């Protein structure tokens, strides 16, 4: 058995003139939840499509448990389960029929397929609805059905593309619990993409941050956050035009490191937030900079993203460039 469950090496792919992947590499060890975190359009779905044999890279290579996806797609398909970003079930069929179909395609007997479907329906709390058409189910139930369909043939690696997008908070928490259980109890390797920072933070044992088709940071969520060193002081400016003056004032405060301005707010890296905050406030006051908000935060994955991609996650999602964006009031 290979010690690497998923390996991507220097993957590159372009759609026309759009460079979706620009040399993306990472490796996943077996039995963990691995997160591919990045804003929309970063190349996450393209990566998953290559790893699941759905599309081919222009360059680079990828392997699942040591089996090359380009050379032996049919062998890879037996090892993996895939839950696409869009729902991938048949809405006219019942939940049970969808699951049974999936298992039978992978070679189970009718009896075995029904037994396995029964187990998964039970596990995901879908038994009561099993004989209703899946098209009539709630969004949360449909998403669970999608995940269950990806599990019917007991894959060793499960790919989840944006598993909780569009779910209400309760359904999201439910699904998080199930995903965590897959790795913890079943020893499955789960690779998920997400553009929710808190999802990656909560679920992923290891993660890579993807931006513009390449990996900009890798590690456990804690490593990434601790790697920034210290806390973040965030202040919201009453007048965005004050940004340059405010940065100059902050640069003079001892203990303040790197400062990034984004729209109407400043994020400053500091060693000890609680101690430095009063000094920062008086320095800004002295420089005549008026504030609408101020606060100290432990580093978040958003800070990690900002550090490596040069812009905040929300901006990247909106397709903005570094340093320009709407006035953002940071809650203390």
């Amino acid at each position, binding site marked *: 058995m290979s010690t690497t469950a998923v390996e991507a090496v220097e993957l590159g792919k372009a759609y026309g003139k759009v460079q979706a992947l620009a040399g993306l590499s990472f490796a996943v060890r077996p039995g963990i939840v691995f997160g591919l975190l990045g804003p929309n359009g970063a190349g996450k779905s393209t990566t998953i*499509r290559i790893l699941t044999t*759905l*599309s081919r890279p222009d360059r680079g290579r990828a392997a699942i448990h040591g089996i090359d996806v380009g050379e032996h797609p049919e062998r890879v398909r037996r090892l993996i389960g895939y839950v696409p970003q*869009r729902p991938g079930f048949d809405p*006219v069929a019942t939940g049970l029929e969808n699951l049974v179909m*999936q298992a039978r395609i992978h070679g189970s007997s009718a009896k075995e397929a029904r037994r396995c479907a029964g187990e998964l329906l039970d596990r995901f709390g879908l038994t009561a609805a099993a004989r209703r058409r899946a098209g009539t189910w709630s969004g949360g139930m449909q998403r669970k059905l999608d995940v269950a369909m990806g599990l019917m043939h007991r894959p060793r690696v499960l790919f989840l593309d944006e598993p909780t997008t569009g779910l209400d908070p309760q359904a999201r928490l439910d699904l998080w619990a199930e995903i965590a259980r897959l790795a913890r109890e079943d020893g499955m390797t789960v690779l998920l993409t997400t553009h929710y920072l808190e999802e990656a933070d909560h679920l992923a044992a290891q993660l890579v941050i993807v931006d513009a088709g390449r990996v900009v940071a890798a590690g456990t969520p804690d490593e990434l956050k601790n790697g920034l060193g210290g806390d973040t002081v965030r202040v919201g400016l009453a007048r965005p035009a004050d940004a340059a003056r405010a940065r100059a004032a902050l640069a003079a405060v001892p203990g303040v490191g790197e400062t990034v301005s984004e729209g109407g707010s400043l994020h400053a890296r500091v060693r000890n937030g609680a101690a430095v905050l009063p000094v920062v406030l008086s320095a800004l006051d002295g420089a005549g900079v008026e504030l609408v908000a101020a606060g100290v935060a432990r580093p978040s994955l958003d800070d990690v993203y900002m550090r490596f991609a040069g812009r905040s996650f929300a901006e990247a999602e909106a397709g903005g460039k570094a340093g320009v964006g709407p006035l953002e009031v940071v809650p203390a």
Partner: protein
Amino acid sequence: MTALTHARLLSGRSLRTLSRQPAYLLFTLVQPMLWLLLFGQLFRRVAELPGFGTGGYLDYLTPGVVVMTAMMSAGWAGTTIVDDMERGVMDRTLISPIRRPTLVAAGLTHQALVTVVQSLIVFGTGLLAGARYHGGPLGLLTVLGCAVLLALVFASFSYAVALLVRQHEALIAISQFLVLPLAFLSSVMMAPALMPGWVSRVARFNPVDWAAVASREALQVDPNWTVVLQRTGLLAALAIVTAWLAVSSYRVHQRSL
């Protein structure tokens, strides 16, 4: 063996889907009757012209409407592929162990079954309306065979177009653009002897005409089997080519992903 199981599972799924859409199912079954009765009434007196032989116009028209119905309903076959793409079912199917030729074969099996049922409805409607067919069971089987082959040709073509254009609007436009002209540029409604010269020349290259000619011939009192075999041979060859085209289109589609 795996391929057979897959094909059975997939065509079972599409028949189930059809059975759960009663409105669509009803339309599928009523449409063939409508064509026969409509054209049968509209052109009833055409048969009085020399060139149609001795029987009534319905006798002449029935095999033509059988193959025309087969073509029209198969022309829509690709819509299920576009549906699957829009629903995300396609991605899941493509990374399953099902092979591409099996996907096409399963769809064609479904279409063949639908065609047989529709054809029998047309025959039944014709009988009730007073048409009389010769040729016995062999004649009937030949007509069903021609209808199925023509359905395979158009269904495969429809799959290929669906995989390449990926949207309902374009698929329907292309299908509509072909279907009616092909029906009218054939001997489905009009005896070959009465067509303008250029139409009968074009018809010689029209698969709808091949199916119509072979079907009518098989229902004669004394069929010319050479004509029947020639036309069904052409249809079978074309069906193989278009099915191959559909399989290749899956590969083209996947390369663009």
